[in-house]
């Protein structure tokens, strides 16, 4: 089998697992989980430095430079303008020109605001960013984002951090079928089967944070997710059988017919 790589812009990747860096119980567990995941892309958030306590609490101190592609997000943004501002700050770090546009419209669901997300994507593409918008699983807005120049589309399986899994595999399948850029299922996944299903539907990759970081054993779950992503991808490439309403024997009915035994068969 040929090496199964994929690309975003100029970046060729083997791993199909984007891992978030929030919520881990310790930097040590986080590093072990990153290693177990095989992830090549790590996501971060951007926040004000706490000037009252300036010990180095940046996440970057725990990550080996040069080993990963960094995907800063715009979490906390409520409008396109705020997201653009955060993206510009992230790029000024010199670490990456990739940005995950994340603009929440509700504190309760953290569901993305599609209008503001589209506006931010248009602006950031103009400014030369590699834009990966997090968006709801609506095929129409996904198409609009692609037309706006998004390098990948990242529809959610369910609201962030809920672990509800893929709530609408029909929509997700349609988005994947119609997209000509990579589709990365982002948010709401809970366990390995959700990751496998994402890949079986034909997603190019999966982005997760909470189901790994908040698992009882984050390192074990990171490995489980990695294997599930690989299994789901292989199943997608191999092609599942069509679903049928009724049974069909796998050994052929003819071979099941045994002749009725006669008295002589058992000897005397």
């Amino acid at each position, binding site marked *: 089998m040929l090496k199964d790589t994929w690309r975003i812009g100029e970046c060729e990747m083997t791993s199909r697992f984007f891992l*978030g*860096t*929030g*919520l*881990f119980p310790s930097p040590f567990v*986080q590093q072990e989980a990153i290693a177990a995941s095989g992830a090549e892309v790590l*996501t*971060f*958030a*951007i*926040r*004000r*430095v706490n*000037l009252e306590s*300036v010990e*180095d*609490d*940046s*996440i*970057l*101190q725990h990550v080996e430079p040069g080993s990963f592609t*960094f995907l*800063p*997000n715009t*979490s906390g943004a409520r409008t396109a303008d705020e997201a653009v*501002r955060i993206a*510009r*700050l*992230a*790029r*000024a*770090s*010199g*670490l990456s020109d990739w940005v995950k546009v994340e603009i929440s419209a509700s504190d309760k669901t953290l569901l993305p605001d599609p209008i503001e997300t589209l506006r931010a994507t248009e602006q950031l593409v103009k400014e030369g960013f590699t834009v990966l918008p997090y968006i709801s699983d609506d095929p129409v807005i996904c198409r609009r984002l692609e037309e706006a120049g998004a390098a990948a589309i990242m529809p959610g399986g369910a609201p*962030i951090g809920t672990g509800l899994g893929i709530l609408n595999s029909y929509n997700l399948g349609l988005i994947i079928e119609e997209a000509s850029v990579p589709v990365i299922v982002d*948010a709401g996944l809970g366990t390995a089967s959700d990751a496998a299903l994402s890949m079986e539907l034909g997603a190019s990759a999966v*982005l*997760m*944070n*909470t189901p790994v970081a908040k698992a009882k054993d984050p390192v074990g779950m990171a490995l489980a997710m990695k294997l599930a992503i690989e299994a789901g991808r292989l199943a997608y490439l191999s092609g599942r059988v069509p679903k049928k309403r009724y049974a069909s024997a796998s050994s052929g009915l003819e071979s099941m017919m045994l002749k009725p035994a006669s008295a002589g068969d058992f000897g005397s």
Partner: protein
Amino acid sequence: MKLIINGGEREVDARTMAEVIDRLGLSGKPVVAEVDGHVLVAEEWEAFPVSPGMVIELVHFVGGG
């Protein structure tokens, strides 16, 4: 001089942005700066003069998904 840093007023004895970063104990740390709404990359800090009332935002990367 008085500067507005991360939403709060602070008295900082500094002439340049690099000195502001130094006075706050942030030298060598992966910090990104915005001054009066404009992003200022680290290479510009040394030559960038600060003046009273400037609004400075200092951010860094934290864990997130």
